[in-house]
């Protein structure tokens, strides 16, 4: 019996980084609240992931193999995980807040009629119970979440809410679990995943990044940012709205749907700091933010901040750096 069940996601035949962070969070919360932790691996690579998970300090590692789980589908995964949750009846089920989790975990919530607290950033402990917090209103506010009723609570953690480096090693017993899943339950036929633009810019290894957001205003202003980047030898990156507008190709995008970066300098021009962008760049060593909105959430993680108009500052900065 475990109190917290962490559900793993497969990434290239190993445990997804954000699942590792969820294990780390579960260990920490488990210790503080006196709750035991178990891990669930499922899908084609379940045994590989379960073997990797068994080196961590948890009670038990469960694995589910079923031919209808070999390719990911929301139909199959939600049905299988819901069955395991019902059988094991943990107090909490933890996930990393990945794209796949967004896709199928709400289905489990509806099946079990139990709440899904998603994109959680932190917790506090009240007696022996964790209280979870998530960001809201464009990441400008934090909300304390409260749940009621009996049964499991589903929780997904935002990227870097917990560090995978803090995972406690140990040993865990292994158990194979069966689910009842018929092929007729899968009403979706997935094709092979593919990459749209091979090549592109590898922002993840860039030392210096100049990044532009919605504040750039129009396509005609892009060259101004390009010049600034060129002067200091930086790569040009952007937040999602710039790519959505077709002003830069998608391989320039930083954030949950783009690349994750950690340069020495991240100079953010006109980027407000939606959480989907922040998760892709908050590991940068020095974050310099220029934005005309003093409430832009990106200022929260800035080392240096300028409240001002990028259209005035950008060309002058380029000039000053040239000389």
């Amino acid at each position, binding site marked *: 019996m475990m109190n917290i069940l962490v559900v793993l996601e497969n990434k290239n035949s190993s445990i997804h980084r954000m699942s590792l962070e969820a294990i780390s969070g579960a260990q920490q919360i488990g210790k503080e609240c006196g709750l035991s932790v178990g891990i669930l691996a499922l899908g084609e690579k379940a045994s590989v992931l379960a073997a990797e998970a068994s080196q961590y300090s948890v009670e038990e590692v469960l694995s589910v193999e079923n031919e209808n789980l070999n390719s990911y589908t929301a139909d199959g995964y939600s049905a299988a995980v819901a069955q395991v949750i019902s059988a094991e009846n943990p107090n909490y089920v933890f996930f990393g807040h990945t794209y796949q989790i967004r896709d199928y975990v709400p289905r489990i919530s*509806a099946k079990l009629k*139990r709440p899904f607290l998603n994109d959680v950033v932190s917790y506090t402990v009240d007696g022996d119970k964790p209280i979870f917090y998530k*960001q809201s209103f*464009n990441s*400008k506010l934090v909300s*304390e979440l409260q*749940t009621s009723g009996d049964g499991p609570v589903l929780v997904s953690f935002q990227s870097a809410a917990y560090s995978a480096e803090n995972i406690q090693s140990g040993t865990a017993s292994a158990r194979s679990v069966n689910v009842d899943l018929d092929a007729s339950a899968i009403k*979706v036929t997935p094709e092979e*995943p593919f990459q749209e633009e091979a090549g592109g810019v590898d922002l993840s290894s860039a030392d210096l990044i100049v990044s532009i957001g919605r504040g750039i205003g129009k396509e005609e202003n892009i060259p101004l940012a390009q010049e600034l980047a060129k002067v200091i030898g930086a790569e040009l990156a952007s937040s999602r709205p710039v790519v959505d507008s077709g002003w830069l190709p998608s391989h320039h995008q930083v954030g949950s749907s783009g690349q994750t970066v950690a340069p020495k300098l991240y100079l953010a021009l006109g980027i407000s700091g939606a959480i989907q962008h922040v998760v892709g760049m908050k590991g940068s060593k*020095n974050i310099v933010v220029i934005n005309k909105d003093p409430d832009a959430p990106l200022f929260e993680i800035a080392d240096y901040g300028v409240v001002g108009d990028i259209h005035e500052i950008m060309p002058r900065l380029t000039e000053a750096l040239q000389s």
Partner: protein
Amino acid sequence: MKICVLVKQIPGSEATFNVNTDGSWIQESGLPFEMNESDIYALEEALQIREKMGEGDVFVVTLGPDRCQKTIREALAKGADRAIHIKEEAPYCTDPLTIASVFTQVISEENPDLVLSGLQSDDLGFGQTGVLIGEMLGMTTATLVVATEIQDGDIRVKRELEAGWFQWQTMKLPASLAIQSGLNTPRYPSLKGIMTAKKKEIRTVSFDELKNVNIQQSFKKLSVQRKEKQTEMIEGSVDEIVGKLVNVFKNEIRII
């Protein structure tokens, strides 16, 4: 083809938020309100599917107080055929399951082939409503949808995976799709659209009458984001700012 689009009205992205005295909600007075960004793309996708099919019924469902009428009219002006307004007064429900069950009761009477929603709202940010409704109505579901192709009795959708990967999947109809922003170019309402929108039907239903009493999740308290980092603010005239930035690059971060 009958298409339901979930459209939400949210405070504008550059708004300053103040929390009310008991921390239960934001102070709404004076805030600008607008259509949620990914919902704009969901609505456009519905209109384009209707145009490609040559016929269809696109109806919008919106949950919120009276101020949402403006957003509903905007959706009608862009080309939605009709709307259902689920009226809710403050304090607003923040339980995704309850919200989805109310939508489900309204939508099930309509029996749509497709439910399109934006990926997530910029205010509450749950990103669950479309998927919950799909499950509750026994539909297939997909999120992060960046392209759609209607086929015979099926729909083929392109989903965005992480780090620049994509995947197509073919789904049985009816389906509920959560639409990622950027997949199309949303139209502006035409003058004719704005005029005809005034005559289009908006049916009103009450949230309180439809909600079940078993609310399991809520916002207990809202607060301003705690600052994680010490930020050095650089101030002055444009020249002074530029001078100080160059100094930071040279002497603090040492990149030049």
